[in-house]
């Protein structure tokens, strides 16, 4: 008989090896899926995972795209990971991302068409504040009324999507073009444009912000009491209280950080690659970032790698749609499988498979 046996200490090897193994298994399962869809599996996998970077034909377009897609994922995931470590489950980053974009765009549209160096920094603050504010709703409901933050943060995503639609059709709509929903294109408003900093690299302010956030989170989690308390609260809540950690304060901090970072991601997107407030503005970065956080082992450095990988699947997915007519949803399935495989593999981090001998009598 096979049974699981708890390890005395979690295996460090499997902690690091599992994400890579999960990617390999996902590729294999994905190949099967593509074969079932009638596509050549080898070509499809190549197209998604290698061509965006190494192909001569598409590389020049898609290489810069990699950072553009990965930066918001990393920015959001770093914040989420801090909360997840403390067992505080903000799964409504998508909503905070939308609110950040709306606040940032709101500042820009209010100043339009005035020039001024201060406009973009103001937008950054507003974006972070918008995400923060939206995350404070589940935080305060949790601390004041003990309401489940998972459900509230998630339900608020749908509310944020409705607000986004209302804005795109109403207050923020571009008054110069009648009949079309959507705001002015911020890329055409120099003072508000989150432009590429180095040509053809895809590096914009959002990438810089993601890098800063990663370093900041790394230092906080490994060297600062706050990071220690976050981990303590996640692993042993009673021990955290004994250590003097206030659970309410931690909820506010964790949700605040992740909300602000998601808001920033939304703001950098709307003022750069996205360009305008539209109904279809939100494309699920907030949810994909959950996968990024887990795949990166809730570790800032791991999140960078995981964010790049999932950014790659976005670009590869687009290529696949264009060239192989792969369905767009295939990428979503891909990302879901990745998380499944990772979770499934993780049992070997904490448990050991053992063949137990039969009873001898």
């Amino acid at each position, binding site marked *: 008989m096979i049974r699981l046996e708890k390890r005395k200490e979690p295996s460090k090897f499997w902690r690091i090896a599992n994400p890579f193994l999960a990617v390999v298994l996902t590729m294999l399962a994905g190949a099967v899926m593509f074969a079932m869809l009638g596509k050549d599996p080898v070509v499809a996998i190549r197209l998604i995972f290698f061509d965006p970077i190494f192909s001569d034909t598409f590389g020049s377009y898609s290489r810069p795209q990699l950072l553009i897609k990965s930066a918001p994922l990393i920015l959001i995931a770093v914040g989420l990971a801090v909360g997840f470590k403390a067992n505080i489950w903000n799964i409504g980053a998508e909503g905070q991302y939308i609110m950040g974009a709306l606040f940032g765009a709101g500042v820009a549209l209010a100043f339009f068409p005035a020039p001024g160096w201060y406009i973009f920094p103001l937008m950054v603050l507003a974006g972070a504040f918008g995400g923060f504010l939206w995350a404070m709703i589940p935080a305060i409901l949790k601390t004041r009324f003990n309401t489940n933050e998972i459900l509230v943060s998630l339900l608020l995503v749908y509310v944020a999507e409705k607000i986004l639609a209302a804005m795109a059709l109403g207050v923020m709509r571009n008054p110069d073009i009648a009949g079309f929903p959507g705001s002015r294109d911020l890329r055409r408003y120099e003072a508000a444009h989150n432009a590429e900093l180095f040509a053809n690299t895809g590096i914009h302010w959002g990438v810089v912000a993601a890098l800063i956030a990663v370093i900041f989170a790394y230092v906080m989690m490994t060297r600062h009491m706050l990071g220690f308390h976050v981990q303590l609260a996640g692993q*042993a809540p009673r021990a955290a209280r*004994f250590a003097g950690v206030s659970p309410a304060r931690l909820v506010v901090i964790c949700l605040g950080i992740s909300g602000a970072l998601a808001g920033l991601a939304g703001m950098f997107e709307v003022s750069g690659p996205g360009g305008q407030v539209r109904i279809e503005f939100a494309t699920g970065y907030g949810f994909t970032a959950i996968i990024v956080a887990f795949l990166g082992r809730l570790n800032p450095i791991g999140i960078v790698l995981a964010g790049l990988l999932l950014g790659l699947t976005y670009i590869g997915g687009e290529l696949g749609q264009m060239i192989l007519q792969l369905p767009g949803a295939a990428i979503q399935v891909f990302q879901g499988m990745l998380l499944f495989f990772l979770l499934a593999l993780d049992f070997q981090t904490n448990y050991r498979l053992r063949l137990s*001998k039969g009873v*001898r009598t």
Partner: protein
Amino acid sequence: MRAPLLRLDGLTKAYPGVVANDDVSFEIGEGQMHALLGENGAGKSTLVKMIYGLVKPDKGRMHLHGKPFAPAKPSEARRNGVAMVFQHFSLFDALDVAENVALGMENPPPLRDLAQRIRDVSEEYGLPLDPARLVGELSAGERQRVEIVRCLLQDPKLLIMDEPTSVLTPQEVDILFLTLRKLSAEGTAILYISHKLEEIRALCDEATILRGGRKVATCDPREKSARELAELMVGQVLTPPERPAKPKGDVVLQVDNLSLASNNPFGTSLKNVSFTLRKGEVLGIAGVAGNGQDELLLMLSGELPAPSVRVQLKGKPVGHLGPNGRRLLGLVAAPEERLGHAAAPDMSLTANALLSASRRKGLAKHGFIDWRKTESFARDIIARFDVRTPGPHVLARALSGGNLQKFVIGREIELDPDVIIVNQPTWGVDAAAAATIRQALLDLAGKGAGVLVISQDLDELLEISDSFAALNEGRLTDTRPAKGLSVEDIGLMMGGAGDMHVAHEASA
């Protein structure tokens, strides 16, 4: 010798890294009161789990009524007349008494009939119970009655009782013994697990002693002294802790008429608690589990905030302060639950050293942790308190109960406190570690700190306390000098036998 009921032959069970039972053989006669005696970790629990079908032996065999007996699951054991009352009750708070009883039976009658049978049996054996009450609302003693009644309804031939008296007052213990003697007289054998020697000498007619998973002796406990039994059990000669005589000092901790609601829906609120603790004094607080001990510790450690002036540390009101504020002023605590409360199981000993010591030991500057300093602090604790572990990088949950407890208490003592509060300092700890811990607490008192020990182990309290009080349903009795107190007196302070006297008189 009575007719044998259960015979064990060479039972062996190994877990990775530890042999829990090694070639254990003995016999239990019909209607016999058989004690299974041993320290924590001696293998008592594993052995009875094999008899009850929860664990399969690796080797060896059992015979019940002379026939081979190898229960694959508890229901099979129950069908064969083996019943068990667990140490940590197998009860369900949100279900009522009748449902709890039904869950432990093979073929329970409809709930309405069952309720009547529960009333009948509980009256017959002097164990009053209301079948309709939610188990979560019962006291520890009442919960034990649910377990016992559950077993009795199945007419067991063998009743296994795992440390049954740890949740009872001395008077309740007497009544339990009456019930057990009555059962034994009716022909039910009882396998009685304990590490309390006096109890076994009072109750049992045969004892099997385990040490390190092996049987060291089977004897008649009434013919041995408690000391002889203890040395068989521990395998070494024990010396009682020394205590330097000391004069009474100034008041360091004062709690004044404090009432506080529990933070747990099934917890016990504190009611009008008052006491004072002086420099160099060891104050022991007794009580049956669930009478407010957890709440008292949380209130004193600062995890459960109290009205400011009701708690005074060296004359300063500290009720409003959290754990860190109180630590800075010199009050430290060590909660009962080592894994998960006093220490984080999945963190290293270094991180666990940081847990309560960060401020008082200056292990972090502007919030930034000095890991090197923290690690050397952890090493100090390990060295000074003889914590057996490969090093400070080891996870807390990898340590044995006794070693982790030495680490936790050591950590608090190293903070050089003026007042230390400990709850169940030697619960589930082997005798050698328990002696080390008690000595360390006495040494601390000798240096002038006030020591408050909350414990359910009366022997321990009588051994180390200068003064004595008891918690009973969230109320604290007046403090009395420990010298000259009898176990009877203490039992009455703990609330006597509650409603059980009445029941027994009625059935007698």
